[in-house]
């Protein structure tokens, strides 16, 4: 089978921008709204999600010729649930603070549409390497989207960024950006999460529309130019004939 040149790069980058699971496909919004109170928690959620996505995509791709049509969905659910359980146990053992912070949202990765969606739409039809790249791109895209949301929520909600030993959730020092008393604590609440999410989606939609408009204008100008050229050529031809 011939492969398009640069397919791997395109496959990886699509998850980051064009098909970003959170900001473009609007999938996995529940943990995105719940676990983005701080950048640290968002990074943790993103990493755990990416690990599950990579493992499930690889295994689904490996077994794609064995798993028959009828048992596809239950088989994928079993595979995803297994990896989520493993990730949950490992987090509980080795990153207990992250486990406590994310709580039930680690278990809820099982029902995250992105994981089942990628298994069904991509890994079940493609080879292991491509499925791995797809999972990496989608996982990183989702992680970056979570970080973007958490960045604004933490900044506006607490007015500061806390730094310390990663995933201990104990701040060693705080970088106060908005003066104390001027922070908007609503951004730490679910309502704030919805507002930040809506603003980001609005900005993305604006950029996309602007890009489409520019493309359309360019195409229109090109068409007019071509029409004018054709008219000029036709006039020249008529003039020459006379």
């Amino acid at each position: 089978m011939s492969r398009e040149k640069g397919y791997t790069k395109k496959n990886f980058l699509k998850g980051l921008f064009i098909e970003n699971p959170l900001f473009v496909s609007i999938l996995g919004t529940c943990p995105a709204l719940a676990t983005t109170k701080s950048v640290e928690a968002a990074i943790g959620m993103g990493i755990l999600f990416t690990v599950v996505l990579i493992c499930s995509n690889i295994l689904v791709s490996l077994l794609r010729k064995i798993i028959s049509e009828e048992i596809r969905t239950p088989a994928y659910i079993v595979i995803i649930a297994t990896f989520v359980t493993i990730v949950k146990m490992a987090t509980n053992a080795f990153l207990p603070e992250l486990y406590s912070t994310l709580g039930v949202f680690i278990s809820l990765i099982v029902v995250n549409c992105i994981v089942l969606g990628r298994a069904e739409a991509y890994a079940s039809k493609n080879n292991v390497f491509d499925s791995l790249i797809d999972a990496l791109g989608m996982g990183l895209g989702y992680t970056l989207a979570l970080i973007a949301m958490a960045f604004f929520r933490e900044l506006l909600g607490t007015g500061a960024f806390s730094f310390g030993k990663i995933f201990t959730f104990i701040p060693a020092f705080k970088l106060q950006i908005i003066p104390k008393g001027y922070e908007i604590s609503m951004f730490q609440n679910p309502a704030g999460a919805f507002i930040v999410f809506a603003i980001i989606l609005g900005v993305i939609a604006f950029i996309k529309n602007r890009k489409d408009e520019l493309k359309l204008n360019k195409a229109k100008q090109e068409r007019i130019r071509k029409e004018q050229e054709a008219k000029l050529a036709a006039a020249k031809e008529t003039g020459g004939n006379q």
Partner: protein
Amino acid sequence: MPSKKHYIITSITLGAIAMASAVLIGVTNLATRNQIKKNEQNKINAGISEIFGKSATISKEFAIKEYKYSNYVYQVKQEENDNNYALRTTGSNMYGKVSLIVGFKYQETEYVFSGLYVVSNEQTYASTLVENYIDPLNKKTRDLDDVSCGATYGAKLVRDMVNEAKEVVNKGFGE
């Protein structure tokens, strides 16, 4: 129509995937079990220190089985004559499981609630429950029965757990 062989192969495939999953989970459980227990013990020690002070030590511990939420008792001493208790209580509702250490200090005639520590919290509104109910309860800025906090069902569960623990500790342990 699919053949009998197709059905058998399909069943075997799904069975094999489930079996492999069980093995993987079992192996992970074996590898992480001790560390999880150790973390839990560390949390319990941290909870007892937070409730009773850094010098508090567990002098005796035992399990209790006959109660809905309370399942473990720690006798805590800071000084020779201290007779304080911390009870481990675990409960769940439709929003998930929550496990707490509830501390009681003996004052005059009975054991009085002296603090709460969250060992594990799998409630959907976990942070709301801690920030709006458990933390103010520890700071004594909220009453135990004032459960309207944004995580009301979780708070009601915690209230019931604390009330049961209080009843248990005041009933005594037959010593």
